């Protein structure tokens, strides 16, 4: 029996409605030529969005902050529950066997949180231990996995369910800024879940162990990536400084080296990389700073292409594709990297 927590099941879910980049550009009125170019970047082909039906003019209606929050909750419950059920199925775990639920979201604030609202939807027990990780951004999937892994390690045999669910389309605003065009052309909706257990039982005996985490915060770039209140809009709005991808790339070797050093590993011993699909620039920046190949980031790029940046859920989509590929062998080591506001880089070491 091994005490290290294992990822014994993974599930993902997307909203039913799928849009090409051109369709989204048309549905968002008021894009000037410069901003429309962001929607032609071929690294994203389509995104799935939990949005109301388009109007007769083919446009997405402008929504109030209240409507956006309601849409976030509605979408989060729908695709969040679907991803959670898929992960539980994958692990062969009935809903009433879940002891701990961690829900991660940034794209809508709500109290009571998603953990409480999903409890009856999923049929979870009333003595459920819960943690809502809210507002931490794209990196937060790994912060959630920390909570789940530490819970599982502290309670051998207990089952922790991690759910990352983001309705990024409820964070779109309408203005002529470059930052808004980047956000509206990049972020998609999606949910992903993982079942974590520290005794290795269940269907997936061949499951990656979570060996450890390293975090790296760059407070000098605190203002460079924000999702905060915009008085002019009367809405929450996402701001992204253009240098963020470069800052992340320059800093990413720090936590990766610390993580590998801690376990006496060299980078050439890392067989798989699970990198957050943050966007073309930041993926390039990480690639060239760590010396990764296109093959190393193949799933990162394919998730970006088909779903856009689904924020905290992205890395589990990438992990899911790696698992489905069935190339990992016993002993293989993987490094997961997520990055987000703070500026924060979160890393985790997995081993099969």
């Amino acid at each position, binding site marked *: 029996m091994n005490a290290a927590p294992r990822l014994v099941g993974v599930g993902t879910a997307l909203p039913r409605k799928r849009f090409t980049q051109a369709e989204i550009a048309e549905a968002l009125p008021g894009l000037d030529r410069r901003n429309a170019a962001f929607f032609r970047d071929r690294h994203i082909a389509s995104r799935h969005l939990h949005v109301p039906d388009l109007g007769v003019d083919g446009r997405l209606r402008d929504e109030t902050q209240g409507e956006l929050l309601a849409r976030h909750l509605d979408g989060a419950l729908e695709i969040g529950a679907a991803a959670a059920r898929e992960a539980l199925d994958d692990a062969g775990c009935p809903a009433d066997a879940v002891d701990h639920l961690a829900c991660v979201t940034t794209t809508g604030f709500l109290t009571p949180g998603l953990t409480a609202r999903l409890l009856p939807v999923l049929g979870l027990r009333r003595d459920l231990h819960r943690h809502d990780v809210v507002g931490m951004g794209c990196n937060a999937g790994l912060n959630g996995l920390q909570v789940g892994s530490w819970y599982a390690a502290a309670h051998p045999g207990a089952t922790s369910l991690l759910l990352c669910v983001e309705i990024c389309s409820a964070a779109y605003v309408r203005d002529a800024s470059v930052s808004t065009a980047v956000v509206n052309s990049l972020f998609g909706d999606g949910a992903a879940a993982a079942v974590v257990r520290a005794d290795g039982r269940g269907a997936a005996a061949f499951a990656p162990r979570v060996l450890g985490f390293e975090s790296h915060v760059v407070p000098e770039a605190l203002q460079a990536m924000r999702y905060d209140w915009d008085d002019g809009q009367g809405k929450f709005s996402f701001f992204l400084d253009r240098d963020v991808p470069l800052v992340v790339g320059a800093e990413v070797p720090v936590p990766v080296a610390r993580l590998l050093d801690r376990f006496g590993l060299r980078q050439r011993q890392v067989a798989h990389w699970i990198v957050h699909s943050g966007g073309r620039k930041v993926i390039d*920046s990480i690639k060239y700073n760590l010396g990764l190949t296109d093959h190393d980031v193949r799933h990162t790029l394919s998730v970006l292409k088909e779903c856009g940046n689904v924020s905290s859920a992205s890395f589990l989509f990438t992990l899911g594709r790696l698992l489905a590929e069935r190339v990992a062998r016993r002993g293989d080591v993987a490094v997961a990297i997520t990055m987000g506001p703070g500026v924060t880089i979160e890393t985790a070491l997995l081993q099969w």
Partner: protein
Amino acid sequence: MTQRSESATLEVRRRVATLTLGGRPGNRIHPGLIDDLGRVLDRLEDAPDAEVLVVRGAGGVFTEGIDFADFAGGNPDVHGFHRWERVVTRVERLPMATVAAVDGPAMGGGFQLVLACDLRVGTARSTFALPEVKQGFLPGMATFRLAKWVGLGVARRWVLTGEVVGASELAERGVLDRVVPDGALEDGVAWAVAALGPVNRVALQLARRLLDESFAVSLEDGVGHLLACQARAIAQEPFLRTLRKAKGSP
């Protein structure tokens, strides 16, 4: 410092490391040599003290190529070839500048290794060929690399005919940077080592990688890759030193 093994010897003297292929007659390539190369590359990657790696062969031969003796026993499988490709790719990506110094024949895998190095020098008598297709198999990723050097037409001729190419023709095609008289290989090595210094590891590795990708990437992507690399390069000490020098401060 010297690291000795049966078929690949590494010697590091100050800023220059020398990897010498040896072992079997004709310095032929076999699984043990690939293992030895892997260990030498571990050493070079883990402790990149040298600025330049010179790759050469012992006894007036670079290498005669693959040793079929190791296939005699059983069914050939593709994994040994995969291990060879990994070794060649690691040479191509080393955190130091690399020089292939060829005297005598560089056949098959030998020619493949030459194509992985940053600079390539050879004596007048050195010869190069990819005989694999005539022998019924493939010259590794030379099929991928060679056309970038000499164009598709010449690459096709060399790969399909196994033609033995002399040093002067290889120099005309831009594959050899310098041809030196027989017996004067050290002059060629000295020229290459001097030409590559001072070695700025980060800029060298990034430039090498961007050049390598230039045939396969769109201009739009290429600019993105360049900027990601440039941001890294200009944050490094060698560029900051260049800036200080330009300002006239020490």
